[in-house]
């Protein structure tokens, strides 16, 4: 006699499901590969290519390909490829760190507002709106100008002006989740406010925050590029935006010198936003229909 019942479907971890969803999104997969390649190039590029990016190696503004300089040289005759590789380190590092700073501020403010509600929420959300009113780039320009142009000031300046979106998302998630029964159960089991906020509610609020954090890395890279383009960055490091800014006088005579670093920024941010979109679809299957 044969058993008529079907075997029960195997339970799969949410992580495996998310990964499967992500892998179905071809654009996001390609983008992740590109992104990984960029990160590897940033890590092993400078030591392998073994050139000091500040060293003046050839005549200024020699076009790409000449004398074996694949991407040409800049206005001081420095090797552009070497500059792009070490610029990748700075741009990526600032992008990730600034995103981390803004996510940290955003989660703290959003969690407190969404959890305590009442006057705490009122005060914190007014505070958030205040930061939304300040023109972000202008405000960070002022911070960098007043407190000196170092990598730390630039990173903090970017983080301090861009946390509002994370705060609003976190608050919305907390408002929704805090009413769920499992939270009440934890509270009944004796969990304190801190534990409820960061150990019980936060893990379930994370998916949209993760997506926002991923996109934030891209925004921060663009932001740093903007500041560096204006000359408001640490003069002792090379970043992609700074290469564009320092060659700005030659836009019309030597277009390649501003085009190449821009392409690097563009590809990196594009890859990050595609990965972010992929994560969004994978973590929010409901949104897939859009």
């Amino acid at each position: 006699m044969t058993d008529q019942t079907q075997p029960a479907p195997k339970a799969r971890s949410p992580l495996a499901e998310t990964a499967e969803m992500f892998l179905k999104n071809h654009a996001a997969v390609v983008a992740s590969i590109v992104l990984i390649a960029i990160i590897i190039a940033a890590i092993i590029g400078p030591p392998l290519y073994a050139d000091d990016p500040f060293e003046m190696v050839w005549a200024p503004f020699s076009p790409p390909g000449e004398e074996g300089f694949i991407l040409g040289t800049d206005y001081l005759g420095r090797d552009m490829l070497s500059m792009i590789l070490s610029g990748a380190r700075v741009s990526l590092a600032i992008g990730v760190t600034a995103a981390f700073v803004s996510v940290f501020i955003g989660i703290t403010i959003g969690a407190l507002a969404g959890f305590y509600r009442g006057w705490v929420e009122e005060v914190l959300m007014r505070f958030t709106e205040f930061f939304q009113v300040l023109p972000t780039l202008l405000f960070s320009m002022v911070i960098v100008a007043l407190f000196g142009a170092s990598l730390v000031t630039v990173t903090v300046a970017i983080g301090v002006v861009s946390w509002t979106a994370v705060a609003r998302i976190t608050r919305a998630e907390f408002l929704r989740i805090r009413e769920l029964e499992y939270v009440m159960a934890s509270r009944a089991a004796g969990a304190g406010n801190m534990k409820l906020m960061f150990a019980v509610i936060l893990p379930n609020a994370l998916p949209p925050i993760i997506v926002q954090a991923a996109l934030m890395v891209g925004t921060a890279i663009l932001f740093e590029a903007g500041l560096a383009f204006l000359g408001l960055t640490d003069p002792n490091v090379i970043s992609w935006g700074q290469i564009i800014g320092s060659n700005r006088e030659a836009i019309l005579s030597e277009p390649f010198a501003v085009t190449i670093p821009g392409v690097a920024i563009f590809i990196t941010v594009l890859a990050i936003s595609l990965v972010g979109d992929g994560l969004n679809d994978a973590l929010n299957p409901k949104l897939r229909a859009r």
Partner: protein
Amino acid sequence: MALLISVLQRIGYALALLIAVLVLNFLLMHAAPGDIADTIAQDMGGADAEVMERIRRDYGLDLPVWQQLLRYIGNVAQGDLGYSFFFQVPVTDLLIERVPATLLLVITAQLLAILVGVILGVIAARRPNGFGSHMVTLLALFGYSAPVFWTGIMLLICFSLWVPLFPSGGMQDVTLEGGLFERVLDVARHMVLPVITLASIFLALYSRLCRASMLEVLGADYIRTAKAKGLSEGGIVFKHALKNALSPVVTLAGLQFSAVVSGAVLVETVFSWPGLGTLALQSILARDTPTILGILFFSSLVVVVVNLITDLVLRLIDPRIRTGAA
């Protein structure tokens, strides 16, 4: 009556925001190393302690901090944003001189972005899986990922260097002779590239949002009713659906205004547009604190006013907000 009270509430709240900006400005001014006396002394090529003392007293720097703050807010309320030692004129005069150029650029770019964004969004929403829809998604990604100053430079290289259609910078040709019409045309020619550059960031955002909000509205019951009544598709899309799909776009456009001002700084720098953005960069490089903070305050003022207007417009086009039922 309820409408009037809520409008007054919004205005009071906007004023509170502006005072908060002033307090922040004041704190920044005090956190920065050196004060006005140092700047003036530097300007005069050095001054002895007695002169420094007098300058500090003249500018009220010897008063308690809270009195200085009140004095500062009072001055700003009277339209006095301080004196720029770098440009040798009152900051308010500087701003009045530069503001029109920036407003012209920013408002034109926003209108273009909203108009084209809505059109693209509607096209994409009518065939959510069609070619047009994918193009809008792609465009949105490009607009989001390219640094705006780089987009400007690329346009400059294409349409000013390779195909010399437009001038490479500035707002007008000072050597131009002719009547008002020629002048206007000249400014318009100078505006094309900066406006397109600035619009490119927001165009993508608006088209994507308009697409999503149109898709949502087109799925609503009342649209099915309209279809069942036999109305033409164009009539349904533009008369019935678009009206309701627009309000998130208007909301976002208002919220984005501080980002538009930020974008303007970069675009103005690329195209040497004689507005607030180039002024901001000049004054930052010259460490001209009163001017920098004046610009920060003024742009926040613009953002607050735009948000207020957006809010009022939304109340007018969306009765749900008007009655507080949403």
